């Protein structure tokens, strides 16, 4: 009917959009969650394997390991568009170039490290799928929630010193400035003991012992009992948080995927660290 529209995705690739988007492949759980929230759930024909279990997907949706996808399957699914993630790209080169040759448009979403980035993700997906109104509602809802926590935290004077762990022993990993998690911690008024480090940093056990946090949070979900594991580490009993039994688990999916759902994690963190303010 009309001229095909060309957009530039947020990583700078020019993409010719299809006239209609009726079948979508999403390659990251964050994109999948956003698509579902924008009402596109039933148009998704294939998702990456980490998206398994996200509610709102078709039962017959195909699960693909996008680190090692079978291109033939993708082509034979006849998708109108592939919404990929920076995580799929190898060094600026376009891993799905052959799919483009086969006539399938591919857009890439950059890795998000700020809350603003999440808004932009939502807006861009909305733009290419034609659901801008729903996106505006979604974003406004998030902003409203966030403002609520900011207000409460403004009244907290004695900020708790917290260590937030995203990878367990022996390779401890934490987050610091330049990550949306750090932004979230600041919103709820938490003093991250490693705030000055980069957005995702390995940390040594000695450093944690020395920092001596009052509370330890972990969103590790791939070992049996992350809280117990932390408490049982040799030497960690001299840390205040461990000594006072202040080690908590924060839901992994809501805190580790850059989507509108971070407000759920925000709530969980706020209520865990400052129960007295949220009764």
């Amino acid at each position, binding site marked *: 009917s009309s001229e095909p529209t060309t957009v530039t995705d947020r990583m700078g690739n020019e993409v010719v959009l299809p006239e209609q988007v009726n079948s979508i492949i999403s390659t990251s759980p964050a994109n999948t969650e956003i698509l579902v929230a924008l009402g596109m759930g039933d148009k998704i024909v294939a998702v990456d394997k980490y998206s398994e279990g996200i509610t709102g997907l078709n039962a017959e949706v195909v699960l693909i390991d996008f680190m090692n*996808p079978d291109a033939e399957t993708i082509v*034979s699914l006849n998708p109108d568009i592939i919404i990929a993630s*920076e995580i799929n790209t190898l060094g*600026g*080169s376009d891993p799905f*170039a052959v799919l483009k040759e*086969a006539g399938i448009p591919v857009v890439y979403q950059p890795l998000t490290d700020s809350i603003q980035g999440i808004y932009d993700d939502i807006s861009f997906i909305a733009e290419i799928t034609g659901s801008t109104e729903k996106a505006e509602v979604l974003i406004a809802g998030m902003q409203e929630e966030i403002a609520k926590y900011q207000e409460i935290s403004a009244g907290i004077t004695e900020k708790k010193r917290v260590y937030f762990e995203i990878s367990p022993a022996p390779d401890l990993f934490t987050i610091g400035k330049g990550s949306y998690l750090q932004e979230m911690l600041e919103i709820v008024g938490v003093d991250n003991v490693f705030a000055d480090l980069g957005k995702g940093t390995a940390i040594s056990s000695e450093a944690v012992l020395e920092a001596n946090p009052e509370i330890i949070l972990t969103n590790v979900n791939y070992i049996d009992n992350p809280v117990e594991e932390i408490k049982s580490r040799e030497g960690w009993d001299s840390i205040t948080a461990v000594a006072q039994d202040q080690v908590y688990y924060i839901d992994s999916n809501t805190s580790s995927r850059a989507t509108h759902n971070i407000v759920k994690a925000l709530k969980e963190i706020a209520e865990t660290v400052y129960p007295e303010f949220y009764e």
Partner: protein
Amino acid sequence: MNKRRILLVITTAITVMLLAVLIGTVGVTAADIVNIILHKLFRLPLRPDLQPNTVSIIWTLRLPRVLLAFLVGAALGASGTVIQSLLKNTLASPYTLGVSSGASFSAGLIIALGFSIPLLGNLTLPIVGFLSGLATVFAVIAFTKRVDKELSNNTIILVGMVFSLFVNAAYTILTALFRESLEGIIMWQMGSFAMRGWSYVRAAVIFIVIGLLGVIKYTQEMDLLSFGEDEAKANGVETDKVKKQLLVFSSVLTGSAVALSGAIGFVDLIAPHVARRLFGSQHIYVLPISAVLGGTLMIFSDIVARTIIAPSELPVGAVTALIGAPFFAYIYFKKSR
């Protein structure tokens, strides 16, 4: 007897190649494939019942993939043979000289920093990988030359080992520092022929043909060198020049293989042994046969890699060893029992 065996090897190679084009998510017939190829090459009309999807899958995905797998396997088989007999060490392979650590390091750097050279586009990773693999080998040769004018095998091996471990360490540190890219880097390193289109095949043909021509012309020299440097010199081999050229060209082979498809192991170490077992010691047989065997094994492994857990794939580098090891054990030890 050699003739019959050569025939057998070639027939197997062709059969596996055909099989590879036929097998995949979308089932096609040999006739379809011929039709598609003729259509693409000579603009012959396409049969109307062929879906454009199917055409895409065969032409854009499957064909280049099979060709690339063969080329890469052949490159690894040939260069493994060269290095093994040049350095007279069963465990030596071009990887020993740092080709793959060089390539992996720069590939890791590119993946981690996420840049791309505009002109090279899609081929930034393979081309830079290739060049750094080669650069590592040149560094090894230059350093060896400095400490040991004779360019003796033991020194080459030691220097290669130390350089390659060093570069590899740098690469490891890279992956440790850029943990977000760790997965990408590791998966790249495991090797795959997925999503490589014709541009990769074109690059592979150029470099691998150059490399193969560069080494195949020295089969007699390799024979002579296996009796020792002095013996080879006395028979008229310019050992210095020949060794350097063989090192460089086999690095071109491995370098392009690694750059185009990741650090796939096994073939380089095992193909020469199988070829020797079947065809004796003369390099005029061993070298091309290793190449064909390497290519065949690679295509076969790729078939398995992309079908066994479809719609995902296994890393082909792992499948190669998984299939190749029992095959090797069978061939190699059949007679000794």
